[in-house]
């Protein structure tokens, strides 16, 4: 029997992998993809909870999350493009004029 815990653990694994990816990667686009991975993990958790709670709100939330993710993707990629235009790189380690 697959319980909610299974799904949640899977979601946790995905979330953690996403977080770790953000921490160790240097390519802005990949980092962004890792963030998308985190969002997906959250979505899984929502849907799973909704299923086991016999509730609809979770699925709705996922719908909105996806919409937001789409909007964010557009803006985020635009930002990355803008950075690339000026700096010719998407390596975030090269993007630190401002510090301290």
């Amino acid at each position, binding site marked *: 029997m697959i319980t909610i815990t299974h799904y949640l653990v899977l979601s946790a694994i995905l979330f953690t992998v996403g977080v770790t990816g953000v921490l160790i990667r240097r390519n802005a686009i990949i980092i962004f993809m890792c963030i998308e991975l985190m969002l997906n993990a959250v979505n899984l958790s929502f849907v799973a909870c909704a299923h086991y709670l016999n509730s609809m709100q979770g699925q709705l939330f996922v719908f909105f999350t996806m919409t937001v993710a789409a909007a964010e993707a557009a803006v985020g990629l635009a930002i990355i493009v803008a950075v690339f235009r000026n700096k010719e790189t998407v390596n*975030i380690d090269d993007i630190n004029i401002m510090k*301290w």
Partner: protein
Amino acid sequence: MLNLVSLILLFPLIGSAINGLAGKRLRKETVGYLACGAVGLSFFVSILVFCGLLLLPPEERLFEKRLFSWIESGSFRSLAALQVDPLSTLMILTVSGVGFLIHIYSIGYMHHDKGYHRYFCYLNLFTFSMLLLVLSNNFLLMFIGWEAVGLCSYLLIGFWFEKKSASDAAKKAFVVNRIGDFGFALGIMLIFLNFHSIDFTEIFSAASHGNFETGNFAITMITLLLFMGATGKSAQIPLYTWLPDAMEGPTPVSALIHAATMVTAGVYMIARCNVLYTLSPFTMTVVASIGAATALFAASIGLVQNDIKRVLAYSTISQLGYMFLACGVGAFTAGVFHLMTHAFFKALLFLGSGSVIHALSGEQDMRKMGGLKSHIPTTYKTFLIGTIAIAGIPPFAGFFSKDEILLEALIRGNFIYWSIGAIAALLTAFYMFRLLFITFHGESRVDHHVMEHIHESPKNMTLPLTTLAGLSFAGGFVGIPGASAINHFLSPVFGGHGHAEISGAETAEHHGAGLPYLMMVISTAIAIAGIFLAYQMYVKKPGLPKRLAERFRFIHKLLLNKYYVDEIYDAVFVNQIKKISTQILWKGVDVRVIDGSVNGIARLVGGIGNIFRLLQTGYIRNYAFYIVIGCIFIVVLAVFGR
């Protein structure tokens, strides 16, 4: 007539105020006459008051004049009120009288000085302060006068402020006096704590009505503290050092300080508090011992000094020691009596020396004098009278008072007091005549330039001299043993104690009636011995002192340098305190420790800020890392932190 008493204070005050505020615009003569007139009027009123007091029966000779309430706070009350009784009357007569003469003398002496009006302003203020001191009816008001004379001495000693030595001396006088005042102030507070009042009459009546047993600790502390004040003002060991330095002021000022005002304040105060002092035998012993020690100590220094005024200064200290000795053995009348006679002849001597200095265009070193006898005869004659008086040759004033003190010291005290007193008397006679001989006799060692200008002083200077000479001669007769007018007069103040005759009569039974007369002879002999010795050394064999000095070089040097007391004080107190203040307190505690730690904290915060800002690396990955750490921290705390 007694109601006029406030005028005594008012005149000098007004004189001082006018001279101080407007003196610059007044003519010199006006300034002088104004000042003299003020003190003269004051003297005149004093006489009236004196007469008024005499008209009253002896028991009722106590009059209070309340002016206004000065400081009131809770149960504490200090009136501005004047008290007229025999003791204060005697004092105001002496002060205003001698002061008046000194004022007159000053007109001539200070004629050429630029600060003429300033001088007279101070002089009047000085007289005022001293009169206030003796007329006040409570301790706090007395303290005003007490400090005010200190201030005036400061102003006058430092009159020639451009001389560093003068201003140093002035400061020293004030500061040393302040040390005494410290004791005095504490004494007043202790009095208030024990008597709940600071009025003389209330305190003394409480004390004399047996509320305090003899030897009471509080009373002992009070009297000791008050005595501390007295040692400052009256230049006793260990606070005498300011007095010799005070010679930096104009000579009439020295006369004023030494004779009529200031230094006598201590004696007056102890006499005033005789009721308290008699309640504390321990203090009495202290007073007598210090008095005796000072008398001897100062006299020994006086032996070798070369500055004419300095010799006189040490002689003053020594004589004051006598007065304290008298008070210390309980012979207050004798002390006050000596105070009065001393005022006469010391004023005379100082004014005389002033006259000499005036004649020699400011020279004070005796080694550059000599043979002045013929050049300034009036000065010489009067000076001679003064010297004889202080040496204690009958029937001059000094004899009676000093003799009485020695007698009392023996009767009421012990042989040691007497012998110290006697030795001091011997030394006094010696050094005074040494002074006289070196200055007026022998060969002239005066500079040529100076010699040309030698002249006898003007009339207004010699007149006070002669008057004082007269007083020095005759002043002692008020206290002839056996028929002492002064004893009678002062008896209401000193009551059962301090009255020479009663106690004298008692002791006479023990020692036989002839004792007083025997003592007179002995003291005369001592004086004459001193004079003889001086004559031998300074007139007959002028080389002898030098040889002696070489022979006893150590002692001579010690005496010449005044036992190095000033140097010791400097080394032990003054320099150390300055050093500690600068190095440890200011640069150490203040700058290093406190400011250092405060600035250190500020720097620390700034430093932490500078270190922590480095965490802000600019790398997104770092930032994300912080977020994850924070997240784990929060989650752990939220879930497991309960």
